[in-house]
């Protein structure tokens, strides 16, 4: 047994290091806990006094220094409708094809998933450039709610594909042979069995996508535009709530408090949407655990 000089150095690290890690870690954790409250508090302090029923229904006046956000809420909603109208069939269809019709490791599947993953990395301002040229100029939509919605659809497509795909992949593996054994066609099996079973995951994906779409600004500046009138058709330009905050903060002197009000409304909407996603996923998770 080799015997060597035993420990002689004073050991500082074990105690001091532990204290430092603990203190710094707690401060860091508190920061992320506190940050959210801090943001909400500031927005509420600045923006809450302006909130009233009239604020939600009224028109924008004096470039946003007065009045309400009625038309903007309608525009935001319409943009969302256009967005979902494109992204749901596209995203769900893509995920279905990937999970039911091609092998996971085939070249085609890899190319498509690779393309979708790359799409997820594209900065939102670039989606704005693309939407402006493709939907606005090439397809002749100009600055319109439709162009904005379709641009957002491209942007949230990866979220929907990913969540739908993982919902389909987490289905029990014996569903498919069971359907085949009953002589069901692929189409029937997908429409009647797989899609209903994967619906919870798809709905969660859609909710997450809505949250993302509501908060997006950069992709909308050059596609759905700045118009603050009540939109009449999908071909009209319409300003979303997020673009309104941007415009007030950057271009309108004295628009600060009204920007805070709009930010507060937007934040509340997004919190609502995200809570719905969380509640849904927990609800479905619990139900899945209960059924044997």
């Amino acid at each position, binding site marked *: 047994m080799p015997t060597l000089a035993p*420990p002689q150095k004073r050991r500082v690290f074990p105690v001091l290091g532990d204290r430092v890690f603990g203190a710094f870690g707690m401060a860091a954790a508190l920061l992320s806990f506190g940050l959210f409250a801090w943001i909400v508090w500031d927005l509420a302090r600045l923006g809450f006094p302006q909130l009233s029923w009239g604020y939600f229904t009224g028109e924008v006046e004096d470039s946003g220094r007065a009045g309400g956000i009625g038309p903007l809420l309608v525009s935001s909603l319409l943009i969302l409708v256009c967005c979902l109208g494109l992204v749901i069939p596209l995203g769900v269809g893509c995920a279905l094809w990937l999970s039911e019709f091609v092998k996971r490791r085939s070249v085609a599947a890899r190319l498509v998933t690779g393309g979708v993953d790359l799409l997820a990395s594209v900065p939102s301002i670039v989606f704005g450039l693309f939407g402006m040229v493709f939907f606005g100029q090439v397809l002749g939509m100009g600055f319109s709610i439709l162009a904005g919605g379709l641009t957002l659809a491209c942007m949230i497509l990866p979220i929907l594909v990913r969540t739908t795909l993982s919902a389909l992949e987490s289905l029990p593996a014996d569903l498919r042979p069971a359907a085949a054994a009953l002589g069901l066609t692929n189409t029937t099996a997908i429409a009647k069995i797989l899609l209903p079973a994967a619906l919870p995951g798809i709905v969660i994906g859609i909710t997450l996508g809505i949250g993302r779409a509501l908060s997006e600004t950069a992709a909308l500046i050059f596609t759905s535009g700045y118009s603050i009138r009540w939109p009449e058709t999908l071909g009209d330009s319409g300003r979303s709530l997020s673009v309104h905050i941007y415009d007030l903060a950057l271009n309108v002197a004295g628009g600060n408090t009204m920007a805070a009000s709009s930010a507060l409304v937007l934040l509340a909407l997004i919190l609502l949407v995200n809570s719905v996603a969380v509640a849904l996923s927990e609800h479905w998770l619990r139900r899945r655990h209960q059924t044997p």
Partner: protein
Amino acid sequence: MNPSALSRQNELNCSTSGSGCIVDCGTSNLCVSELSVFYRDHSAVRDVSLNIPTNEITAIVGPSGCGKSSFLHSLNRLTDLIPGCRVTGSIRLCDGTEITHPQADILSLRRRVGIVFQRPNPFPQSIRRNFEIPLKEHGWHNRDIPDRMEAVLRDVGLWDEVSDRLHKSAIALSGGQQQRLCIARALALDPEVILFDEPCSALDPIASGVVEDLIHSLKGKVTVAIVTHNLAQARRIADHAAVFWVRDNAGALVESGPAARVFSDPLDPDAALYLSGARG
């Protein structure tokens, strides 16, 4: 003062008496009395009293689920890592340190009572770092570390195999080499006791033989307690044996004593059947 030298001196002062499972810390390095281990309200080990003699090899055998590993892990408070796990009773080191004491210095305790696990678990860093991290933590001087590392690597017969790639990842070694590295890493801290938790069961037969010979060679240098499923192995290397069995839904010690006697002439009927290979 070298703690292990101190313990050896203590041992000389101890009066020599016969081995057995009575609570008398005669020639024993670890004296366990009335030890029980609970996981929440379920008791995994109940009322075990056992002496683990100094610088000899004590084999702990028994069927799966009889609490051998829980017992072993409580000997250096690794049971602390398991949420809901509670240990009662007394475990005393030779110098009187009470291991189960809530205020015991766990970190220096674990330096004195090392452990080698079933699956080799080198840190996924260089071989050298595997020694530097624990040695520095326990206060060795930087300049002493290379010599220390070489000495223990020679002890486990690994020096010639790895001396030219100490900067390479320990993960790249074979399973048997990794396990010898883990033994060397435990030895490097100059412990008084090393616990082995089925150290060969994850290895192929040849590597298993090498590690077994290595453990055997520790006899006379350090106190060894080894949990093993391999009765033949226990027969080959153990000086003392302890047989665990499930009694009333909890692990209990049913037989202990000199290995030759326990293996040839067990008193407990369950132990006799188990050791003869008829049960368990």
